[in-house]
């Protein structure tokens, strides 16, 4: 576990990844040069990337769905590569409890989603799947944005 000061810095980056070094320094009371070094260090380990979260519906991508999929054991690796490469898949996890993958996908319309699922079923022996349309995003990437959690 990182020292508390580092966790405070991380919580600020979780709240606003684009915060300037000057502001981060002011908020955390850590010198700018130290923050610069820490960031480089985190970027080579703890931080996957600094992401910009986009309201894709504003860009014409109005259909979003979370899909859980079960596939034959021998096709798991192949499907993983396929999902990783698919431009429609925003986020993908390997999961347990009766299913193998959970993917969050984004499409322009329901037809695109339908084609995506059909294509999956043609390429792979999909044993089970559930499609959950996203109606609303209520909370997004809030873990470790609150300093209170550091007490956990």
């Amino acid at each position: 576990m990182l020292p508390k000061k580092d966790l405070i810095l991380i919580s600020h980056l979780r709240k606003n990844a684009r915060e300037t070094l000057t502001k981060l320094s002011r908020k955390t009371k850590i010198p700018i040069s130290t923050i610069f070094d820490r960031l480089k260090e985190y970027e080579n380990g703890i931080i996957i990337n600094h992401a910009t979260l986009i309201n894709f519906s504003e860009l014409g991508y109005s259909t979003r769905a979370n899909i859980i999929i079960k596939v034959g054991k021998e096709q798991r690796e192949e499907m993983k590569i396929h999902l990783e490469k698919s431009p429609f898949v925003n986020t993908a996890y390997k999961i347990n409890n009766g299913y193998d993958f959970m993917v969050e996908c984004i499409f322009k319309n329901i037809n695109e989603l339908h084609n995506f699922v059909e294509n999956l079923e043609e390429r792979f022996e999909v044993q089970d799947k559930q499609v959950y349309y996203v109606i609303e995003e209520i909370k997004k990437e809030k873990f470790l944005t609150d300093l209170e959690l550091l007490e956990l």
Partner: protein
Amino acid sequence: MITKKEIAILKEMRGNARINLVELSNKVGLPVSTVAYKIKKLERGVIKKYVSLMDFSKLGFNIKVICLITPRVEQKSEIISFLLSNKQVNSIYKIDNRYDYLIECIFKTMGDLELFGDQLDNFVTEKEEHFVVENIKTERFLPL
């Protein structure tokens, strides 16, 4: 209406929110001041937020769980307040098809997960849990 140059800015910022204006200006072929103006414009609706995505397991939070839940009809608003204020809940989606919500939670220990599960049971009639075994990709969708 969003322009091609604005899409180009979004594509550059999507996986690198900390990119500086000079670099961004060089990449998209627009003056720095125009890029700054366009980012401000995009932040009013298109850009939701900038967040550093973390490998939480490296911070000791080894357990990530996806829960599909259906709350009791009379407790729908209560469960939302509970989930919104709960610090272990990373994301919440309202969904259709059998369940009402999909939530993503992160825990340090199985004990923390169990405690959360017990609290959740007070609100739900149906619950399905899936442990995340591996992160394959995170927030990688790009607009065309």
